[in-house]
């Protein structure tokens, strides 16, 4: 019996990332552009994807990630949107194996955009790649303008940031300058679109950006 030391240097996320690459390849084969929507519970993730789909004249698909329930999926199916549900049963984020199981439940018969609504959480989803092309960060003015400072990783990793509920600006103390300053320290390139799910304003611009980015 003897002791030996072995260098390993293996990233803990390696297996997840490997499956994420596989998911991404599968989607690319079907010409599907995937958007990972991250944001706190109730920030407006479902509202935003509904509004973006209205403005995108491109086939849309949705995977809904929730700890429990299929409320959001039912809500989308009522609008004839091809949607499927992942329940994580306690896990606070989606990971690539979960998304891998779900992509085979969607038809992908036409090229289009797939929205993957992550579990409502501003922390953990940012740490896991799920095979997406871009990450959309959903924040709302009711979340508070200090969020870039408190949850930097989500802002750092976002490719597009959607600031929702601007119809509520008169009622909340949202310091936009402080908010934008925090974002720009973390992320020089992501556009920030100000929208309201209540009035529908701002979504046309966000959808136009997305369409161009997706190459449609």
């Amino acid at each position: 019996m003897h002791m030996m030391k072995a260098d390993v240097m293996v990233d803990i996320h390696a297996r997840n990332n490997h499956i994420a690459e596989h998911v991404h390849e599968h989607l690319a084969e079907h010409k599907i552009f995937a958007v990972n929507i991250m944001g706190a519970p109730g920030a407006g993730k479902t509202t935003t994807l509904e509004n973006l789909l209205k403005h995108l004249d491109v086939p849309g698909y949705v995977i809904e990630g929730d700890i429990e329930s299929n409320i959001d999926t039912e809500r989308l199916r009522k609008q004839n949107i091809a949607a499927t549900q992942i329940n994580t049963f306690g896990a606070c984020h989606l990971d690539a194996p979960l998304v891998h199981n779900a992509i085979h439940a969607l038809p992908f018969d036409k090229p289009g955009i797939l929205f993957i609504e992550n579990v409502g959480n501003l922390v953990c989803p940012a740490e896991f790649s799920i095979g997406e092309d871009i990450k959309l960060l959903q924040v709302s003015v009711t979340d508070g303008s200090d969020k870039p400072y408190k949850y930097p990783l989500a802002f750092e990793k976002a490719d597009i940031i959607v600031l929702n509920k601007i119809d509520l600006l008169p009622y909340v103390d949202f310091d936009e300058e402080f908010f934008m300053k925090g974002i720009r320290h973390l992320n020089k390139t992501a556009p920030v679109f100000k929208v309201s799910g209540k009035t529908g304003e701002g979504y046309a611009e966000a959808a136009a950006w997305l369409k161009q980015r997706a190459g449609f």
Partner: protein
Amino acid sequence: MHEYPVTVQIVDIASETARKNNGRVRRIDLVVGEDSGFIGESIQMYFDVIAEGTLCEGAQLFIEGVKPQLRCEKCGKHFERKRFSFQCPYCGGDGEPTPIGKEFYVKSVELEVEDQ
């Protein structure tokens, strides 16, 4: 909850190394940046339970933490971020994020190996 699945990955990675070398794991050295999103204490807590019945059973887990650093865009120096501030303590310039502090990997393992 959050650390449970990643602790499973850690045990898998270490066990795989042990299997390749026909040994058992006695010690794992893990590097966890403070901005990795994972808490060392929490991984430590799950580890014994998950390691039970695997090649990692009874192994010790050592966790090296890494403090996150920003890099100043003006003078290029690295520094630790203060709350609600990105300001460089050397020149007052703006700091931008770096990979330092986001580490999350198994650095090495110590194995007990049968003599051939």
